[in-house]
């Protein structure tokens, strides 16, 4: 059974922009989830004012990722992360999801998560 990891926004954006990156390898090796915050960050781009493009990327997300929504417990954890490290709301949700579910994080920018204790990262 494949391990489940949480994929950060940066990994998906890099793949969509360049067609390169670790995402295909991660897909082969892991079950992939994203935080609802990543979903929002991804679709927040003005690129997706194009409805067709927006649908295409939504289909892509639905096909390859499970989206983990935020519940009250996870929101509590995210609030603690922000309080302790002053990271952005999206990062706090990704980190809180990883900690709550026991997922390792796949990211292109570990610096976003600096100072957050208890996270494991996927190296590909």
């Amino acid at each position: 059974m494949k391990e489940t990891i949480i994929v950060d926004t940066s990994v998906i954006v890099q793949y969509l922009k360049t067609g390169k990156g670790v995402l295909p390898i991660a897909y082969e090796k892991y079950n992939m989830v994203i935080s609802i915050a990543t979903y929002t960050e991804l679709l927040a781009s003005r690129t997706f004012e194009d409805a067709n493009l927006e649908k295409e990327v939504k289909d892509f997300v639905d096909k390859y990722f499970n989206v983990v929504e935020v519940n009250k417990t996870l929101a509590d954890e995210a609030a603690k992360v922000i309080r302790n490290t002053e990271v952005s709301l999206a990062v706090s949700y990704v980190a809180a999801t990883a900690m709550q579910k026991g997922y390792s994080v796949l990211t292109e920018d570990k610096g976003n998560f600096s100072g957050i204790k208890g996270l494991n990262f996927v190296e590909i």
Partner: protein
Amino acid sequence: MYKNKDGKVIASLTEVKNKTGDIFAIVDEFGEIALTSYNKVRYKIVKVDIENSVEINNDGPEVKVATTEKKRLTTPKLEEREEVEAIEETTEETVDEIVEQEVPQEEVQPVAEKVPEEPAEVKLFPRTIEIQEWNRDGKEERQFSLNAIRPLIS
């Protein structure tokens, strides 16, 4: 040296050595001769159309022998007599034959180099798109976090 009833020229090695001198001159003359020793045919020498050549290639010499016999020269008068021993009776003897022979040329199939195949990478999205991604480190995000952690009651 004589010609048998089948028209074959039979000569003893001694005759060749003592009388003729040059075995190849006889072969040139008759096309084919059988050489006897102790009354048994031990050798045959065949004149072939001389276009033989040896080409040196990477796999070793390749002998090309023409298959068309050269038109025989006028045969000198030779006595005809019965052979003392039939040639067939000598088959158990070692008979070295120089025969015309096509050397089969083996076709060397080029061996394609095996290139280790790289597993094809899964294509998750059919093309690239230009995304102006949300900047999570931007001023607004940063300000949100700073505001969020500010004490609600001062």
